[in-house]
């Protein structure tokens, strides 16, 4: 069977408990089955297929919900992650204050070249907003990561989070492949490169 996709990416959702990480993985459909017994077991990951340009990309998105307290368990999640979504709830200032802590944890444990994105989620009530969009933008700027506000409730920007992150990873990969190609050329010319680079 020929492969029906161009690339796979492992992505990770992190953030304080209750910020709606799982909601970002749940499309809003009228017939939502939240009573499903599966929700008590919990969801580990989802595979989602998106198309960027002519590229078919399969995302494996890991939800770390429930693992927040168990730092040591969470470490395994970071292995091989190409993209990490740091989520806070715009209605919960504490979760916003944790963003820098999550950023540090991610930097400590994720691959150096993992792409990050900051997401302010308003999974629930917008009238309860405690963190302005401007505040989110400023922190993102400070950390040097892209930023989006999303609402799982209205589906606003939910797809955009995954698209933008995948797009950035794709660009990075293209650059890396180009560099790899040049390296290979060097090898054929006898200039053996000793840089390890990324595999």
């Amino acid at each position, binding site marked *: 069977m020929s492969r029906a996709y161009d690339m796979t990416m492992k992505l990770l959702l992190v953030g304080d408990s209750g910020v709606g990480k799982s909601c970002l993985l749940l*499309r809003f459909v009228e017939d939502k089955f939240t009573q499903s017994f599966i929700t008590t077991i919990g969801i580990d990951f989802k595979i989602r*297929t998106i198309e960027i340009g002519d590229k078919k990309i399969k995302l*494996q998105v890991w939800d770390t919900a429930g693992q927040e307290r168990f730092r040591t368990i969470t470490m395994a999640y970071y292995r091989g992650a190409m993209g990490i979504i740091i989520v806070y709830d715009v209605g919960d200032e504490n979760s916003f204050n944790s963003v820098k802590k999550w950023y540090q944890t991610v930097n400590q444990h994720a691959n150096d070249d993992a792409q990050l994105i900051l997401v302010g989620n308003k999974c629930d009530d917008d009238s309860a907003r405690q963190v302005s969009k401007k505040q989110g933008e400023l922190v993102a700027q400070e950390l040097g990561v892209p930023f989006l506000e999303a609402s799982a409730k209205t589906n606003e920007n939910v797809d955009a989070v995954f698209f933008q992150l995948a797009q950035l990873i794709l660009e990075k990969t293209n650059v890396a492949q180009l560099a790899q190609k040049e390296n290979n050329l060097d090898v054929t010319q006898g200039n053996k490169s000793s840089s390890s680079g990324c595999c």
Partner: protein
Amino acid sequence: MLKYQQLKQSKPQSAILRCSSTGCNCRILEVKDFNSDLQSNDFPLTKITNAPKMPQTIELGNEEALSDESQGLFYSVDDMWSFDNIGVSKTTEKFEGTEEIKTEAGETIYFQRYLICADCDRGPIGFAGYLGDAKRSDDGSGLHYFIHPESVRYEIKR
């Protein structure tokens, strides 16, 4: 969108498996090589002994009993990347059977996870487990996936 029983009558060569929830329609998997018996080389329909029970997902609160005929039948998917969209539960020992789950060929399946719709979380639509002494891994790659034919709907491309 066809139910499995209708699919059997229409004998298509390919079909897109979709979520059966009203308004969801999430694309799960495409089977491109059905033969006249609705068998596929890519995702063979396999009889599983003592498989976890799957509700026939028609409407909320109206989960009909499975037809005897298809009880225990599953599409066998050996690579998670074959799926367009799928939700995978955490590892759980929680299922009703106590007997050993076996494939048609008599190989033991070690039950690990339930499968659900990636969009609406409806399920289970199948399960995943380790086949025999397959390599255990924590990223889902070593698992074998099984989708129940009556837990999904079929879109046939004309």
